[in-house]
Every structure is written in C-alpha cells, then in structure tokens.
C-alpha cells in the first residue's frame, strides 16, 4: 500500500502539519478542541511507524531466506528529497597520508531520511508513547489557558524527534537535536508565569548547550577527519582510521553531547528541575523520548565507538557513575516526580553502560532497555500526574497516603509500572535488565574486564537500590493511613477516562512487551540488521552460555526479591525503622549527601555560575562606566555646538534679514570669483 519512502516522509510531516494547524487556528477556531489535529496526526504517524516496521521485517525475512547472502549486510533505505547545502570541494585533500573517503570534501548536506531497523524501532516507540501521552493530556491539560499552545508544542516535538531518529547525516541530526532541545525548553517553561518553571527551562537549555558544544565540535572533527558528514560515508571509512586519536576525540565529544541530552553525570542537573513542566511533558520528553536521544546517537555511532575502545570505556564508566548516583539520590527525595526523574537518570546510565560494552549483545540490550523503559517510565510519570491531578497538585509523598482505594486504576497501573521497573519476572523490566546484566557479565571476562566486573557489581547494587526508591513512593502514597492534603478539597477522585485509558495501555505494555520481544527473539534479530551494527556482527561474539544466562537471571531476581521484601519491611512498618536507618547512614554522611543530591547544584554555583556571573557583572560595569560614558560624551558634542550657536536665534527680524544679506553677499562673491 505505502512503500517505505512514503511512510518515512509521512511520519514526521503529519505531526508538523498538525502543529502548524494548531498554532494557526488554536486561539480562534479550535480552542478546547486543539488536541484533535495533533492526536490524530500522531496516531496516524504511529500506524505508519508500525507499517514501516513490518515492511522492514519483510525485507529482513527475504534477506535471511536467500542462502548465499552475507549475514552482515544491513537493511536500509535512504530517502533524499532535496539538497540543503551543496559546496563541492569544500575541503582540500589530506596531506598527511590519511585515507580518503569516497566523496571526500564535498560539503553536500541532503535532507535525507533513513529507514533501518534502529530508526524503525525508535520511530515506533516515539510515536506510540507520544500518542498515549497526547491522549492523556486531553484530560490532564483540560481547562488550561495554554491548551492549544501545549498541543502545538507537542506536535512540534514529535516532528523534531521523528526527524532526529530518521536523519541520515550528522548535520541534520544536530539540527533536530537542537529542535527537540527547544521543544523541551518551551514545554518545561510552559507555565512561564511560575518563576521556578522559567528558571528550570533556562537551566535545561543552558546545561544542554554545554553538551551541544561538545556535539558540534565532534561534528567539526568528523568533517575534517572523514571529509563527509553522511552516516554511510563516515561509518564505511571508519575502519581505515582505527587507532587514530581523532576518532577517540570525536567519540568523546559526541559522548559529551549525549551526556547533556541524556542527563548523564556531570550534566545531569537539569533533568530533576525539568519536572517543573506539565507532567505529560515529563513523561514524554524527560522520561521516554528526548532524553534517549543521547543513547540513540551513541548506538547510531557504534562504528565510531567500536574504533575507539577508550571512548567506549568512558561511555560505560559515565553510565555506571550516573546509574549509581541517580539511584542513591532517588532514595531520599520527597517529590514524587523528582524521584522518577532521578530514576530516569539512573536508567539512562544503565543504557550507557550497556552501550559501553561495545558488543552487539550490549547494544541490543541497551536499545531493548530503552524501549521497555519508555513504557514503564511513561506509565509511572503519568500515574504520578494522575495522583497530582487528584490531589490538587500536591506531589510531596510525605503529605499523601493511603490513596489505594480512592484511585484504584492509578494504583494498579502504578504498581504494574513499579514491578516492571524493578525487574520482577516476567514483566518487561526483568528482560531488559537481565539483558544488560548479561552483556556486562559477558564482557567482564574479556580485555578491560576489570571495569566491566565493577560495573556488573554496581548494576547489581542498583538492582537492590531501585526496589527501595520505587517502592518507597508506592507504599507512602498508596498504602498506610489515608492522608489527603487540603489542596485536594473534598473531591479527591479517579482521573477521567482519557487519562486512565493510556495508563492501562501503558501498563499492559510494561507487562508484556519485554516477554514478547524476548521469547520471539524478534527484537535482537530485527535490530541486528541495522547497518550501523554491521561492524559488530563481523567481529562476532561468542554464543552466550545458557548456564550464564540462568545464573545472571537468578542473581538478579533474588536481589530484586530481597530488595522488595526489605523495602516493604521498612516503609510499610512504622517510620521508626526508616529514621533509624537514616541515622545509621548519616554516620558516613551518606543520608545528607543523598538528600542534598550530592550537592551538585551548590558546587556548580560556586565553580561555574558565580565566576560567570562575576565576569558578567564586571562586563556590565565596564559597559556602563566606560563605553556608555564615552557614547554620552560624544552625544554632548552636538549639544555644546548647539549652545554656541543658539544666541544667533534671538528672534529679531532685522537680525535674520542681515544674516540673509550677508549670505547673499557671500554667494555673490563666490559666483563672481
């Protein structure tokens, strides 16, 4: 019916058209119906994405059925609609004996989209979650004065995100990388009258800029090293550059960019603050889709990272640090959305760790976790939004309690999300967590194994910690004595159907998606046909030992069970045990560190913000005192000249007549000469 090319263009264009229509007609024509175009367009995009996945699957089946074909060749289709920039021979040929890529130096940027398994998976995930969140927003945002604005932004975001994952060269990727950042900024600061929201938007924007500097420098270096920015050209020729310091530098710079977008240590500080935005935005942008752009980018650049093992270690190390850091901070926070935000940071860390292993197993595990995480984290955020909706905007878990009976749908779906995220057999989180653990275990025997051994243990520690920080809010908010904040009034009720329906769908997804992918082996098989992963398939990896598989799964499950039991004992009982534990932990200062979020914000204030502010104040003072006063003095010159000439304007008619006579005489004199 539709071929791949049409689908690939339709997926981003539909939300863009809807966003433009909403922006143009929202205030006058649509008003309360502003969701109609955007939700419809995203739903159509979702259908198109699913069709795209099926079509690619068909091709893969064809490829696999051909006996003589090489297993390694990926499946891809590139659609180039028009050439954006074309400067032939923009760069001289290298003189230091480096290999040239085909098409070296032609600065030809095409607006080209690519369809390969990695993109198709991302597109399906992005459009699916966006559709559900958009439906949820109908209920959540109802009555907001910026209703149309919200849906216009969401449409723009879906356009940018789908373009980001289907872009086929680095420059285009960067453009949409920035555009999703812009949407994030607009939506964090959606309630811009609130100073906290405006400040959070600004912070997110600025911290992301630091990462983007790295990204753009990486792109520059790609250009000077490879002479092209096209994915295909760069990835084909990267093999000739193995061991080049430039490739390592490129990877580290790209990693910096990914750290900014995916909120990795040390640039993770913006994500918790971004929770000032509306909750559907937190679910869509700051949990499921935009923050995974960094993971996607590193997965996409696998050939580069495969040629730079040092950079891969850096990816794994940063992921490990972030995973542990996020988990430890999340345990003591009191704001439900912030707990989920730190949990997101932690889980993105796991994805980075998995990507850092540099094996096909690890990258598949990372992408697998990306998909399952999108489901259960979006579910948890939307559940938190439902609680907020019912409790009149209160999100502090200390002020809520025993809402189990009041909000049954929210409770059961939130419970499903919790069980899934901590990795209870056989929910989605279990399979992806298991895949990550397995990839780390698999890698720990190889070269550089020491690092991965440590990361493996760290991840196991994280498996225990997550039980605490996920079940703590669950128990405090939904169990125990009923505590209803006064803001909720006397109308605490379950959310409307447009909000609970997406919750139920997401809960269903969180429960089954992992098992489905794992049992059919469809996901790993599908993804392994991505051209970016060809280099890994060629290198090959040992088949996984079944005994290892069982051992890892058992260790993980046992730790999860112990963690849940401990969390239940702690948080379902009286508060004394918790207080005692907090005191015990505080002997090492751990509790304060965690509660103070490891004091990243004050440290950054002292190290970065204050020096910059001082420089800015100095510059302002210099501008005011030196430059401005100079300009003022220049401005006084005509004033003084005017004062000197002013007595001539004395109002006497004769004086003017005399001046005229002299003028005429002077003219006469000039003419006669």
């Amino acid at each position, binding site marked *: 019916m539709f071929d791949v090319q049409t689908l690939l263009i339709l997926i981003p264009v539909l939300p863009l058209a809807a966003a433009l229509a909403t922006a143009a007609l929202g205030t006058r024509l649509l008003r309360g119906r502003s969701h109609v175009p955007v939700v419809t367009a995203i739903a159509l995009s979702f259908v198109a994405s699913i069709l795209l996945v099926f079509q690619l699957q068909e091709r893969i089946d064809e490829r696999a059925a051909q006996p003589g074909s090489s297993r390694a060749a990926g499946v891809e289709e590139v659609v180039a609609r028009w050439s954006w920039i074309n400067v032939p021979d923009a760069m001289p040929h290298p003189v230091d004996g480096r290999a040239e890529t085909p098409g070296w130096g032609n600065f030809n940027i095409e607006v080209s989209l690519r369809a390969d398994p990695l993109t198709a998976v991302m597109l399906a995930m992005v459009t699916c979650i966006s559709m559900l969140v958009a439906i949820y927003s109908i209920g959540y945002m109802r009555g907001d004065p910026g209703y149309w604005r919200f849906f216009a932004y969401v449409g723009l975001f879906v356009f940018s995100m789908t373009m980001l994952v289907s872009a086929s060269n680095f420059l285009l990727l960067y453009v949409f990388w920035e555009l999703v950042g812009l949407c994030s900024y607009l939506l964090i600061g959606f309630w811009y009258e609130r100073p906290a929201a405006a400040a959070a938007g600004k912070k997110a924007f600025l911290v992301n800029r630091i990462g983007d500097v790295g990204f753009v420098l990486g792109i520059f270096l790609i250009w000077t090293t490879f002479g092209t920015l096209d994915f295909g050209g760069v990835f084909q020729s990267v093999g000739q550059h193995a061991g080049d310091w430039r490739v390592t530098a490129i990877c580290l710079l790209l990693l910096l960019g990914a750290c900014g977008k995916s909120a990795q240590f040390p640039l993770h500080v913006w994500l918790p603050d971004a929770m000032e935005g509306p909750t559907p935005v937190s679910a869509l942008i700051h949990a499921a889709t935009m923050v995974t752009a960094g993971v996607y980018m590193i997965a996409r650049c696998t050939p580069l990272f495969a040629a730079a093992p040092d950079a891969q270690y850096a990816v794994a190390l940063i992921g490990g640090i972030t995973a542990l850091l996020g988990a430890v901070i999340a345990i003591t926070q009191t704001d439900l959305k912030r707990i989920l935000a730190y949990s997101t940071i932690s889980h993105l860390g796991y994805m980075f760790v998995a990507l850092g292993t540099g094996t096909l197993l690890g990258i598949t595990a990372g992408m697998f976790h990306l998909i399952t995480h999108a489901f259960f984290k979006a579910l948890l955020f939307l559940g938190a939004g439902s609680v907020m909706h019912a409790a009149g905007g209160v999100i502090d878990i200390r002020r809520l309690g025993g809402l189990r009976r009041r909000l049954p749908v929210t409770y059961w779906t939130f419970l499903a999300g919790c069980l899934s995220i901590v990795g209870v057999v056989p929910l989605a989180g279990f399979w992806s967590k298991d895949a990550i653990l397995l990839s780390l275990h698999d890698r720990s025997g190889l070269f550089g194994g020491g690092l991965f051994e440590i990361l493996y243990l760290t991840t196991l520690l994280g498996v225990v910690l997550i039980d605490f920080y996920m079940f703590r809010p669950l128990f405090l908010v939904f169990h125990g004595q009923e505590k209803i904040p006064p803001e909720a009034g006397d109308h605490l009720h379950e959310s409307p159907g447009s909000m609970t329906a997406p919750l139920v769908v997401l809960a269903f997804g969180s429960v089954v998606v992992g098992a489905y992918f794992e049992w059919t082996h469809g996901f790993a098989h599908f993804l392994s046909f991505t051209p970016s992963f060809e280099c890994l398939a060629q290198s090959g990896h040992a088949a996984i030992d079944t005994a290892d598989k069982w051992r890892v799964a058992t260790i993980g499950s046992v730790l999860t069970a112990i963690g849940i039991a401990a969390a239940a004992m702690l948080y379902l009982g009286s508060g004394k045990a918790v207080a005692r534990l907090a005191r015990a932990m505080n002997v090492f200062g751990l509790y304060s560190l965690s509660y103070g979020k490891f004091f990243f914000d004050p440290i950054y204030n002292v190290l970065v913000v204050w020096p910059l502010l001082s420089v800015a104040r100095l510059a302002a003072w210099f501008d005011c005192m030196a430059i401005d006063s100079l300009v003022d003095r220049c401005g006084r010159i005509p004033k003084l000249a005017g004062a000197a000439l002013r007595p001539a*304007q004395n*109002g*006497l*008619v*004769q004086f*003017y*007549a005399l001046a005229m*006579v002299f003028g005429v005489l002077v003219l006469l004199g000039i003419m006669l000469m």
Partner: protein
Amino acid sequence: MHPEIALLNDFLLVGAALFGVGLIGFVSRRNMIVMFLSVEIMLQGVSLSLAAWGRFHNDFGGQTLVLFIIAVAACEAAIALALILTLFHRRCSLDIAAWHFLREANQPPFRDVPLPEEPAERREPWPRLPPAGVRPETFGEKDKYRPRV
C-alpha cells in the same frame, strides 16, 4: 560707449541704489510700516532693472514681469497692512521688536523699551449682524465673547 549701454548702465545704477536704500532701511528701521515701505522700495529697484534689461534685449518679457510684480505687490501691500494692523491691535505699538517669537526658547528676549503687555483675555470684536425683520436671539452677557460666530 553705445548710447543703449550707457542708458542700461544708468538704469541699473538707479535700480541698485533703490535696492540698497530699501535694504538698509529694512535692516535699520524698527517701525513695521517703514520696514514694509523699504521692502517696496527694494521691489521697485528690482523692477527697474528688469525693465532696463528688457529694453536692452529688446524683449518685452522684462516689462511684462514688472507689470506682474506691481500687481502682486499691490495684493501683498493689502495683506501686509492688514497684518500690521492686527499686530498693532495686539500690542498698541508698531515696533517690530515687540514680536520675537522666533527666538530660541531659553534665549532672553530683546527689549530696550517697555512695551504694553498683551491683555490676558482677548475679546475679539465679532461683527454684529443687524436684525432683519426678526429680532435675533440674544445671549445677554455671552454675546460679548461667544466662542464662534
């Protein structure tokens, strides 16, 4: 010297003399009527030289222009005298130095002789129409300063 050139010379000399006298008069006198007369004299000086040049070139354009100037000067004289009259009504003086509104705002006005100040409230003597058959409506006291006719 050719008699025509000599004649032209004389006319031009007289014209220049008239212009100069008018100029000096305009610049040095403060009486508005005298100043106006001086301007007229300057005008006549110019007209004379125009007529002389017209004759010299055997071209009646000069003479025609002079007739136009005389006609325009007549109109101008009527307007100028009316203006002078109005100004005189305001200040009860013909001294041009009484009018110095062209000066820069913060310049001190030139004033060597004291002038009677302008009355604070001006009452224009509106023309009163004679009653034609019907006795017109009167407003009593208001008639003296009603805002429009």
